[in-house]
């Protein structure tokens, strides 16, 4: 059995949650509403995050394009995903929404451009 202390971020109240995992059973206490229970359980069993970064662009109006993972990736893969983003390189033009890396770090998610960079 393991208990973790978390701050719920689903609303400004910021309840202090205690999430206990006992085998398959997860109990959340300290939450004021149901959203806190859902958040607490997911944070402990399968936390995910959006990772954002930038990639250099050759011949563009600006030097870098901003990117994000879509959908979210497991939290423990953040640094693997960053390593792939940091080794990427692009040539202008890049349109917002374009897939830059497929199945990044084996997460099943893609890295997509969030900005349009025209040719300079």
């Amino acid at each position, binding site marked *: 059995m393991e208990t973790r202390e978390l701050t719920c*971020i689903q609303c400004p109240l910021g309840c202090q949650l205690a999430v206990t995992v006992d085998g398959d059973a997860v109990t959340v206490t300290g939450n004021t509403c149901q959203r806190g229970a859902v958040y607490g359980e997911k944070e402990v069993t399968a936390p995910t995050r959006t990772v954002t970064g930038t990639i250099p662009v050759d011949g563009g*109006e600006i*030097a870098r394009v901003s*990117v994000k993972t879509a959908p979210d990736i497991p939290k423990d893969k953040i640094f693997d995903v*960053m390593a792939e983003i940091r080794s990427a390189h692009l040539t202008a033009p890049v349109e917002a929404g374009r897939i830059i890396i497929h199945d990044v770090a084996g997460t099943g998610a893609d890295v997509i451009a969030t*900005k349009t960079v025209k040719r300079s």
Partner: protein
Amino acid sequence: MEYHDIVVIGGGPAGLAAAVSAYDAGCRDVLVIERDERLGGILNQCIHNGFGLHTFKEELTGPEYAERYIRKAEERSIEYRLRTIVADVSPEREILYVNRDEGAVRMKAGAIVLAMGCRERPRGALGIPGYRPAGIYTAGTAQRLMNIEGYMVGREVVILGSGDIGLIMARRMTLEGAKVKVVAELMPYSGGLKRNIVQCLDDYGIPLRLSHTVTKIHGKRRVEGVTISEVGPDRRPVPGTEEFYSCDTLLLSCGLIPENELSKQVGIILSRVTGGPEVDDSLETSAEGVFACGNVLHVHDLVDFVSEEAERAGRNAAAFAAEGGKTRGGVLQVTPENGVTYTVPQKIRTDAAEKVTLRFRVNGVYRDRCVAVRSSGAEIKRVKRRIMAPGEMEELILTGEDLARCAGGITVGLED
């Protein structure tokens, strides 16, 4: 002289939303003037996600949020000029702008919307002893250098101030391989959003030390470290609590100030608390036909509220440009008290037709308090809040019925 019904100064989210809503309110002659090379304002460098939850019900990154509004402006063929700075505005709504192709040009506007955003409090204003070595940046400058220009500002980092930009940069630098040693905050609470504390600091085990400040910067040519001390209730360093942190970079995230050089030139009355213009419920400043919205009016933490506010400014500017100067009725002065530091608007017109949204901030962390609106002692409205904090802007709506019961001025304060 060139004339436009509405000239919007600043092409960030506030300026774009104001231009779009002015157009949708029937004004076909709107010009946006932007000094940067692209529209979108500060959002272009805010590459993280978390924008637009209120407006679009999805989490966008800053550039994506900006592109939605740029597209709206382009769909309506709203005219804009880039790389163009507004250098002067007169009370008669004459504008002087400067750009490389045309030089200095004067034009006249039926109505003006100020949407110049804000800037960061510079370090000079903070007065930390020590030399002025390289390696000290405001958090926003570091954000621009990293995200737009691709320049990594440092490897070992200490951040002073727990405003949102500092928190965002703590995560950003960690992801790029830097070691963020500590975030020091002078106040006993963070000025940032809870979500950012959890996802930018807790996720990476970066310590946040409340009631602490940087008391010395070490190094002559490049930062070699900082001394951090605890501060007492009087916010003065407590002797004997000094701790040394070695680092090559110090980021300052010590607050934002509305960008109001132009407003001062017009002689617009500025609020001493917000640093932005004093406005009435139509978001009109003390200069007739000059409206303000977004961070130039008061610093926002969420861009969604910027867009909503700017839409109102745009609509009202369109009405002003169409109808010309109206005869003015009376105004109710709104006075903050008991823990409320300011309200926007500061004035409400007595002939304000519909409901009025009051935005305000409080001066500390309060649990289970009521916000009370009173007029001549009578209680007009009372709402309970579970929690209020300086980092989260509050909102209160006064209906036409509420306003009909007000006489003289109104006060907004916290009560048990």
